[in-house]
C-alpha cells in the first residue's frame, strides 16, 4: 500500500518523463532530429509542470491535493521500495519529497527546459543533433533521480548516470581531440572520487544495515541511527559517522569540482555550450553540494557543543573556502570566455560548500538555486556570443559586441552583476550575504570568511574584466558578429527575469525562500527592520565595498585595454602562473598518470616475462628433457629394440609359415585366446565361491 499515490506519481514524473523521451528518441534516426527535440522538450515541459505542482503543495494545504497540513516536521514524504534482497540485506530504491526536493527539482526542471529550447537554435546545424537531445533527456532524468532520492543507492546510481551523460556530452564533438580527451579526463577524475562515495555507501550498509535516508525513525538521517553512528569509533578518535561522511564528501568534491579535484571542469568546456550551461554550471556540478546538504545531519552528527564543529564539516569548510579563492584567482588568468565561467563555477561551488561547512546548509542551497539560474544565463549568453562570432571563444578577439549583439549584452550584464553580487539589486548579493553571515559566525576560525571575502572581490573583478573585454570598445573580431535568433534569446530573457524576480524573495526583510526551505513559511512576516540589524550590516557593508571595489578596479583597468592584458606586465611571473593554472594539471599528470602507467608497464612486463617466461622456460626444459629421452630412446632402448625386433622378425617369418598369415586363421587364434581368458575367469569365480 502506497501512501499519497498522487504525490508519488508527481515526484516520479520528474525523472520518468525525460526518461520516456530518451527511450523513444533512442530509436529515431538523425533525419528525425526535430522529433527527438520535440520529445525532449515535451517531456521536460511535463516534468516542469509536475515540479511546479510539487513546489506549490508545500506553500499551504491546497484544495488540489488531499494532504495533511504542513507543519515544520510533517512536510516530508517518502516511499521506500526494495530493489534487491539478498538474505537479510536489502538494497532499496526510495524517493523523498520535501521542500528541498521541490525547490531543487523545480530549478533543475526549469533550467533544463530553457536550455533545451535554447539548443533548438544552437544545435540546429549539427549533424548529430538528434543524439544530442537524446543524451540531454537521459541527463535530466538521472539528475532528477539524484534530486528525489531517499536512498544512497539510488543517489549513487543516478550519480553515475549523470557522470556518464556528462562524459557523452563533453565528448559530443569527439572529432575534436581536445573534446575526447576532456571527456575521458572528466569521467576518470569523477569516477576516482566516486570510489570514496561508494566505499562510504558500503560502510554505511555494513554498519547500519540500511541505505534509506528517512524510514520512519530507522533511516540514516534520523536521530536513533545518528546517535549510534556517532557513538561508535571507526578508528582512532574518528567516529563512524565522521569516517563515512568524509568518504562521501570525496565523491561530492569530485562531482562539484572542489580543489584539487577541480581539474576536469575547465576542460569540460569542450562540450557544446548548452551542455556547459546545464550540466557543468547549473545542475550536475551542484549535485555534490546538494548531496552534502541532504546528508547534513550525518555530517553534523556528534557535534559536542554548538560552539564546535565536526571533523567532516571543518573539512568541507576549508576545502570550500580554498576552492572559492583558488578558482577565482585562476579565472583572472583565462582568456576563453567559457573557461572563465568554468572557474567562476568552481569558485561559486566553493562558496556553497563553505556555507554548508559552517553549518548553514540552507544558505548554501539558496546560493545553489540562484547560481543555477544566473550561471545558466551566463553560459547561454556565452553560447550566444560564440554562435554570433562563428565559434570564436577568445575574449581578446571579440570586443565591441555591445553594438552588434545588444540583447545578448543586456542579458549577459544581468548575469554578470548577479554573479558578481552587485549590492541590493541582484540576487547573488543576498545569497552570498547569507553565506558571509554564516561564515563570519563560525566559531573555529575567521580565515575561511576572509578567504571568501577576497574571493568575492575577485569574482566581481574577473566578471567585469570578461564583460568589458568582450563587449566594450571596438570590434577586434575577424568575423562579423551577429545577434542570435529569438529561439536563443527568449530562454535567456526568461532566466534573466527569473534571477531578477528571485531577488525579491531573498532579502532579510522578507526571506521567503529561506523560510520555505526551512519549512516554516507559515511564520513568515515582512520585517523591514531586519535591514538595520547590526550583524547583517557589518558583513553586508564589507561585502558591498569589496564587490564595488572589484567592479570599479576592473572597469578602470579593462575599459581601455583593447584586448591587451595589463595585468600580465604588471604582475609578471605571477600572472603567467595563473595563466598556466598553477600547474595543478601538470602535477596530476606527472604524479598520478605516470605512476599508473609505470605500474601498468610493470604488470604487463611481469606477464610477458615472469609468468609467460616461466611457462616458456618450463616448456623449454620439457623439450630439452624430451630430447634427452629421445636420445636415450634412439641410441639405447631402440638399439635393443631393433636387435630384438630383428630376432622377432626372423622368428615371425618362421611362425608365419606355420599359420599361413591369413586373417581367418588369426581370428581363430584370437578366439582361442578369448576362450582361454574366459576359462580363467570362470576358474577364479569358482574358486572364490
Amino acid at each position, binding site marked *: 500500500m502506497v501512501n499519497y499515490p498522487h504525490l508519488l506519481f508527481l515526484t516520479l514524473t520528474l525523472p520518468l518523463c525525460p526518461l520516456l523521451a530518451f527511450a523513444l528518441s533512442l530509436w529515431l534516426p538523425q533525419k528525425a532530429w526535430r522529433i527527438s527535440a520535440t520529445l525532449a522538450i515535451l517531456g521536460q515541459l511535463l516534468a516542469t509542470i509536475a515540479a511546479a505542482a510539487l513546489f506549490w503543495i508545500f506553500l499551504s494545504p491546497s484544495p488540489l491535493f488531499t494532504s495533511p497540513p504542513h507543519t515544520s516536521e510533517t512536510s516530508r514524504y517518502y516511499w521506500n521500495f526494495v*530493489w*534487491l*534482497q*539478498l*538474505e*537479510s*540485506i536489502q*538494497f532499496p530504491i526510495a524517493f523523498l519529497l520535501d521542500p528541498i526536493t521541490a525547490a531543487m527539482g523545480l530549478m533543475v526542471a526549469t533550467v533544463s527546459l530553457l536550455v533545451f529550447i535554447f539548443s533548438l537554435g544552437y544545435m540546429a546545424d549539427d549533424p548529430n543533433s538528434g543524439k544530442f537531445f537524446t543524451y540531454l533527456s537521459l541527463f535530466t532524468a538521472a539528475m532528477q533521480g539524484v534530486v528525489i532520492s531517499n536512498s544512497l*543507492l539510488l543517489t*549513487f*546510481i*543516478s550519480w*553515475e*548516470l549523470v557522470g*556518464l551523460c556528462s562524459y557523452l556530452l563533453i*565528448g559530443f564533438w*569527439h*572529432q*575534436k*581531440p581536445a573534446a*575526447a580527451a576532456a571527456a*575521458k579526463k572528466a*569521467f*576518470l577524475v569523477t*569516477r*576516482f572520487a566516486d*570510489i570514496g562515495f*561508494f*566505499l562510504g555507501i*558500503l*560502510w554505511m*550498509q*555494513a554498519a547500519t544495515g540500511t541505505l534509506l535516508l528517512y524510514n520512519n525513525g530507522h533511516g540514516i538521517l534520523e536521530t536513533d541511527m545518528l546517535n549510534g553512528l556517532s557513538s561508535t569509533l571507526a578508528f582512532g578518535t574518528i567516529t563512524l559517522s565522521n569516517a563515512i561522511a568524509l568518504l562521501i564528501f570525496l565523491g561530492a568534491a569530485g562531482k562539484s569540482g572542489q580543489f584539487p579535484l577541480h581539474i576536469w571542469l575547465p576542460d569540460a568546456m569542450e562540450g557544446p555550450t548548452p551542455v556547459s550551461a546545464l550540466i557543468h554550471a547549473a545542475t550536475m556540478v551542484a549535485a555534490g553540494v546538494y548531496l552534502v546538504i541532504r546528508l547534513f545531519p550525518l555530517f553534523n552528527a556528534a557535534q559536542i557543543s554548538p560552539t564546535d564543529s565536526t571533523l567532516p564539516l571543518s573539512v568541507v569548510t576549508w576545502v570550500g573556502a580554498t576552492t572559492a579563492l583558488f578558482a577565482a584567482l585562476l579565472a583572472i588568468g583565462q582568456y576563453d570566455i567559457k573557461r572563465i565561467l568554468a572557474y567562476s563555477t568552481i569558485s561559486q561551488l566553493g562558496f556553497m560548500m563553505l556555507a554548508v561547512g559552517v553549518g548553514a546548509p540552507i544558505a548554501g542551497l539558496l546560493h545553489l538555486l540562484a547560481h543555477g539560474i544566473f550561471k545558466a544565463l551566463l553560459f547561454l549568453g556565452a553560447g550566444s556570443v560564440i554562435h554570433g562570432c562563428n565559434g570564436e571563444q577568445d575574449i581578446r578577439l571579440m570586443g565591441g559586441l555591445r553594438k552588434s549583439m545588444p540583447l545578448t549584452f543586456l542579458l549577459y550584464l544581468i548575469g554578470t552583476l548577479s554573479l558578481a553580487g552587485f549590492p541590493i539589486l541582484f540576487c547573488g548579493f543576498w545569497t552570498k550575504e547569507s553565506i558571509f553571515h554564516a561564515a563570519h559566525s563560525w566559531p573555529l576560525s575567521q580565515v575561511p570568511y576572509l578567504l571568501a571575502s577576497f574571493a568575492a572581490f575577485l569574482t566581481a573583478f574577473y566578471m567585469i574584466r570578461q564583460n568589458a573585454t568582450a563587449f566594450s570598445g571596438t570590434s577586434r573580431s575577424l568575423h562579423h558578429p551577429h545577434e542570435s535568433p529569438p529561439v536563443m534569446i527568449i530562454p535567456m530573457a526568461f532566466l534573466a527575469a527569473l534571477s531578477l524576480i528571485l531577488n525579491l524573495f531573498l532579502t532579510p526583510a522578507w526571506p521567503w525562500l529561506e523560510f520555505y526551505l526551512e519549512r516554516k513559511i507559515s511564520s513568515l512576516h515582512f520585517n523591514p527592520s531586519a535591514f538595520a540589524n547590526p550583524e547583517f550590516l557589518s558583513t553586508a557593508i564589507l561585502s558591498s565595498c569589496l564587490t564595488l571595489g572589484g567592479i570599479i578596479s576592473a572597469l578602470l583597468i579593462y575599459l581601455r585595454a583593447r584586448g591587451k592584458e595589463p595585468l600580465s606586465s604588471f604582475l609578471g611571473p605571477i600572472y603567467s602562473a595563473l595563466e598556466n593554472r598553477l600547474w595543478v594539471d601538470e602535477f596530476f599528470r606527472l604524479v598520478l598518470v605516470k605512476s*599508473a*602507467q609505470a*605500474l*601498468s*608497464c*610493470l*604488470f*604487463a612486463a*611481469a*606477464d610477458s616475462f*615472469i*609468468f*609467460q617466461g616461466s*611457462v616458456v622456460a618450463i*616448456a623449454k626444459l620439457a623439450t630439452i628433457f624430451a630430447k634427452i629421452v629421445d636420445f636415450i630412446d634412439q641410441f639405447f632402448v631402440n638399439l635393443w629394440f631393433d636387435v630384438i625386433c630383428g630376432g622377432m622378425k626372423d622368428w615371425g617369418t618362421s611362425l608365419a609359415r606355420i599359420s599361413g598369415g591369413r586373417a581367418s586363421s588369426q581370428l581363430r587364434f584370437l578366439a582361442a585366446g578369448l576362450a582361454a581368458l574366459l576359462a580363467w575367469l570362470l576358474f577364479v569365480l569358482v574358486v572364490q565361491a
Partner: protein
Amino acid sequence: MITILSGCYLLPLAIAVILLLLPKNAQSAPKWLALLATSSSFLFALYLFFIYDRITGGFQFVTRKPWLSELGISYWIGVDGISLSLLLLNGLVGLAGVLFSWNVTEKPNLFFSLYLLVVAGAAGVFQALDFFILFVFYELVIVPKYLLIAGWGSTRREYGAMKLTMYSAAGSAFVLLGMVAIWALGASRGIVTMGLPDMLPSASEYSNFTTPKEQLWLFPILFTGFAVLAGLWPLHTWAPTGHVAAPTAGSMLLAGVVMKLGAYGALRVPMSLLPHGLEAWRWFFAFLGAIGIIAGALAAMRQQDLKFVVGYSSIAHMGFVIVGLMTLSPSGLSGAVFQMVSHGIIGALLFAVVGRMIYERTHTRNLQILEQLGLSQHLPFAAGTFLLASLASMGMPGFSGFVAEICILFGTWQTMPILLILAGLGAAFTVAFTLIALKRSFFDTPQKTSTQLQEPQELSKEATPQLKKEKFQKITKPEIIGALLLLAATILLGLAPGILMGPITESLHGNYFEALFQEVTK
C-alpha cells in the same frame, strides 16, 4: 532418463554428431542446425528456470541412475538456482556465438560440430551432480576447444591453442588428483561415493568424510585445478593469449562460458566439500583474486591489440568472482555467481564486437591503426554496441556488472575490508583502460599525423588508403540480433537483478557457508 534438463546437453551433442555426417560441401545446413541446437538448449534452460520451484529450492529435475556402482559413481544430474543461471548463460552465449559465426565458410560442418561439443560439455558440467560425471564433461570441453582455435583461429593460433590446452590439462590433472584423493579417503573410511550432494559436510552421515587435516592439502589442489580455468592470477596467462588466438565464437565461449566452468567447479567441489580447507586458504586465494583485478586492469592498459585489452579485462572481472567467492558472505557469494553470468554476457559481447565486427572488416585489431580509421563514422552500430558493452564492463549502473560489483564489494567489506583497497583501485583502473580503448578503437580522430606513430610503414600500407564508407561491409542481421540479445540480457539483469539473484541466493541459503560466515565475522 532423457529429460528436458539432459536435453540441454544431449541435443547439441546429437547435432554435433549429425553435423559430422553431413557432406563436406554443405554450407548453410550446419549453421542452421547449430542455431537450432543452441537456441533449443537456451529455451530448455529458460523453461526449466521458469518452472523451477523457488519455494522448495534445492536440486530439482534430478535424474539418478547407478552406473559404476562399485566405484560409487552414478549418472546423477539436477540443477539449483546457481546451475540454472549458468545453464541460461551457456545457452545464451552459445546462441549468440552461432549468430556471430554466421559467416564461417571454412569446413562449417566441422567447425559447428566442435562448437556444439563445447556447448554440450559446458551444459553437462553445469548440471552434473556426480564428481566423476562433472569431470568427464569438464574434459569434454578441452579437446574441441583446442581444435577450434588451432583450426579456425587468428593470431598465433597454434601457440595460443597449445598454451590454453596445456594450462587446462594441467588444471585437470590437479582436479583428477584431488578427485582420486577424495574418493580414496572416503573409501578408506568405508564410504564409496562420488555424488557431490552426498559428500557435503552438511549431509550428516558423511561428516567425517575427510579430516580437517586432509582438507588442508586437498583444498588447494582442487581449487587451483579449477581456478586455472577461471583465470586465477598468476596462472592466467593462457587466457589473453587463448582469447586472442581463438575465432570469434571461440573467444566468446572462452570468456563467456569456459572461464565460468572453472569458477563453478571451484564453488561446487572444493568450496562446498572442504570447509576447513576453505577457511584456512580463503585469504590466500582472495588475495590472488584481488591482485588479479589490479594486474588484469593494469596489463590491459598497456596492450596495443584490442583483443588483448578485452582478454585482460576478463582476468580483472574473474578476479572479482574469486574475491566474491572467498568472502563467504551471502552478498559476496551471490554477487560472485551473478558476476559469472554478467561477465559471461558482457565478455562475449566485447569479443563479438572486436573479433567479428571490427577484425573481420578492418583485418586489424592494432589500436594504433584503429585510431586512424575513425571507425564510429563507418560502423555506427558496432560503435554503439561497443560503447554500451564497455559501460557495462566498467560497472555502470543500469547494467548487470554494477549489481555484481556492488554485491561483491559489499561482501568484501563485511569479511575482508582490507581487500577493498585493491578491488577499488582495480575498479578505477578498469574505467581507465576501458575509456582509453573505447576512444582509440572507435572515437578517435582520423586526421592525426602519422609521424607520431611508430610504424609509419605498416600504416601507409593498411590505413592511409582512405578507408571509405563503402569499403567496410555493413553490419549483418545475425550480428545485430546477436548483439541485441546480449545487450538486452545485461540491461534486463541490471534493472531487475532479482530475477536471477532470488534463485541464486536461495541456493546458497541454508548450506554451511552461512555457519562459516558467522564464524569469520565473529
